[in-house]
């Protein structure tokens, strides 16, 4: 018998399912009458270990779910492994999750490189790669990868939102760009350019890349100021965002400043940069900021606070990773709840691809989760916001904007 690419795997899976059927009732891998196994990989060690907070928050979230009786009578067994942000390690750990731990699905695997390494494997095995923790645009491609779905607004759609704002309010502006030289930074720049359309060529007068290993972005900032740009598009990760905001103030450059929402953390970016230097910076958001006093008595925010106090007391209550982890975990929680007793890999994927106006505790008012069989981008709406240095918070303004970008 000639074995074609992965032709054997469905057969093996079937054999396995049949074998399982003898012991428990006929159910999907990772699901018994009392338990649902969910797998995850996060960088708990290595250069990107700050992101590990997301995995820890999700672990704590499912502890809460279990303490409150589980989901339709089943407890959640959340198995999370460390991949140190290394693609080979990511594949090893995901294979362990799927083949040894026999999980129902892989949830919130973090990072673009790691997800690229596991995408082919998971789709080949028909295991959901649900709500990946990266904003790259390539995760919403249901035709080619029907088992992979993104979650957060993708970087390109955010870039388009800034472009629309610039075209409306500063049509004759000269734009200088600082971006991280990887797919994340380039996705932002592409979104901005696509949004500016034909005007991109004349409006963008300087593009300065930096490497994630660079110690500072000082020289890039000086070059941007020298270029004469009066609009600054800042597509940087937290450390460099703080440096660039500070440097702009030091060299007396006062452009209209657009900062990507990857780096809007008040605690990690705005305060180290000097809050007064951040006055008037524009960005976008979709999750409520726990440091923002306008959510002081917000019901959803209070639920999150109670969760943090009880289930993740050693967590950082100012970190946006904890609100993010809580929100994405709640999304999966709601999907599983809606399935009743019929929890399989197919049913989860089907439910994830047919969400209508789902509301979550920490999403900004007006922002809803929506997906369809052809739309694998759950969050596509955002709202613009402006930094208020005096109150050290972001003030939202304008309407909720949809910046839809379909995967290529």
């Amino acid at each position: 018998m000639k074995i074609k690419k992965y032709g054997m795997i469905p057969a093996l899976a079937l054999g396995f399912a049949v074998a399982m059927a003898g012991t428990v009732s006929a159910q999907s891998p990772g699901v018994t009458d009392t338990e649902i196994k969910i797998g995850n990989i996060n960088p708990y060690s290595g250069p990107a270990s700050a992101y590990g907070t997301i995995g820890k928050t999700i672990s704590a979230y499912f502890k809460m779910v279990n303490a409150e009786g589980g989901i339709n009578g089943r407890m959640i067994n959340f198995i999370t492994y460390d991949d140190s942000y290394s693609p080979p390690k990511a594949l090893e750990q995901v294979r362990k999750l799927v083949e040894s731990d026999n999980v129902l699905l892989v949830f919130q695997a973090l990072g673009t490189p790691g997800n690229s390494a596991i995408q082919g494997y998971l789709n080949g095995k028909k295991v959901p790669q649900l709500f990946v923790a990266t904003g790259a645009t390539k995760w919403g491609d249901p035709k080619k990868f029907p088992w992979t779905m993104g979650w957060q607004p993708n970087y390109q759609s955010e870039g388009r939102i800034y472009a629309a704002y610039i075209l409306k309010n500063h049509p004759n502006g000269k734009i200088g760009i600082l971006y991280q030289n990887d797919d994340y930074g380039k996705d932002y720049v592409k979104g901005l350019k696509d949004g500016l359309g034909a005007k991109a060529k004349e409006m963008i007068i300087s593009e300065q890349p930096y490497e994630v290993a660079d110690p500072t972005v000082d020289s890039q900032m000086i070059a941007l100021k020298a270029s004469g740009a009066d609009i600054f598009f800042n597509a940087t990760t937290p450390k460099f965002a703080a440096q660039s905001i500070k440097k702009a103030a030091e060299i007396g450059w006062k452009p209209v400043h657009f900062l990507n929402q990857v780096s809007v953390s008040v605690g990690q970016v705005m305060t180290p940069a000097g809050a007064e230097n951040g006055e008037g910076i524009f960005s976008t958001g979709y999750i409520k900021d726990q440091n923002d006093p306008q959510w002081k008595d917000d019901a959803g925010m209070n639920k999150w606070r109670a969760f943090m106090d009880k289930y993740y007391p050693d967590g950082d209550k100012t970190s946006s990773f904890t609100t993010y982890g809580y929100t994405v975990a709640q999304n999966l929680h709601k999907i599983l709840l809606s399935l009743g007793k019929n929890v399989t890999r197919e049913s989860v994927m089907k439910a994830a691809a047919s969400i209508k106006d789902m509301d979550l505790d920490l999403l900004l008012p007006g922002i809803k989760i929506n997906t369809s069989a052809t739309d694998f981008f759950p969050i596509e709406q955002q709202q613009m916001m402006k930094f208020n240095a005096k109150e050290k918070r972001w003030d939202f303004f304008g309407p909720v904007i949809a910046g839809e970008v379909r995967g290529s």
Partner: protein
Amino acid sequence: MKTSSPVTSIIAAVGATVITLAQNWKLAGFILILVLGAIFPFWASGVFTFQITQLLIYAIAIAGLNLLTGFNGQFSLGHSAFYAIGAYVSAILMTQLDMPFYLTIPIAAAVCFVFGFLFGLPALRLEGIYLALATFALAIATPQMLKFKPIEHLTGGVQGLTLFDRKPDAPFGLPFDQDQWTFYVTFAVTILMFFIAFSLVNSRSGRAMKAIRDNQIAAKVTGIDLSLFKTLTFGVSALFTGVAGALSAMLIAFVAPDSFQITLAVAIFVGMVVGGVGWIPGAFLGGLFILFVPNIAEHIAFGLSATFDQIRKIIPFFPSIGEQSAKGLTGTVYGVFLILLIYIMPSGLAGLLRLAVQRIAKARG
């Protein structure tokens, strides 16, 4: 009884073979390894087969570094660069020219040999820690070079190259799945590479390499061409690591700059030190360490919170760690392992084994 006669003759034949093998333990060991390798994928699960394949790949890379450091006295903290070049050469040949994977291994080996040889030329002027620093720079630079715009259409830039559709299947309708076949290919290449490594260190050239390591001036006086041997060793070392890289491209079916960060260079270096500098089979022990100890460290770290709580029941003032915070201690636990290991076994697992053999020999008188 009639039926017993073929059985007894088989037993006799087996007995005779066992006696021959017992007299030639090297051959016996080799056959044992072959048999174990042949039956392993049938006994092991898919993940375990995958992990052992990864171990063999690390072992080849570590052996490559060991040839350079253990046998020639040159340091390198940059072998992730050659690993990356091997992986990318293989991946690019597969994606651009549709070349079958097997053909890409010798080409990756040749390209890495040339790269290593060329890097060895300026390295001639550098000694010890200065060479370590230069190779370190190479390891830092390589992931960025892979994103370099003019070659982005080949390397795929930061996105890397996905090879999932190009993983080789077992040929001639052999009844192996991809995991098993990948293991067999890797196993065969491993045997070949270690055969080359053993032959090399026991040859005239190997003695020249060791002579240079032990005393350069003395080596020169005996007529050894220092620069030639040092650059050649660099080339061969890079070749080994490049072959490992090419195999990893097939195993992971994905190459990206993030796969070849400085942490990989450090892992190969750690593997060499742990396995034993200057001892070829130590590469397998080193591979075992860098593959599995991080996983063990992870398990320990994830359970630390509960352990601390247990201790607190006995010693009330013992500190507590939150269950989630403990997950962040994987790297720390791994570090503790490494420190303990180096402290207890300063010459690696090889030194420990040698010590054990000496003790046993002594006890026997």
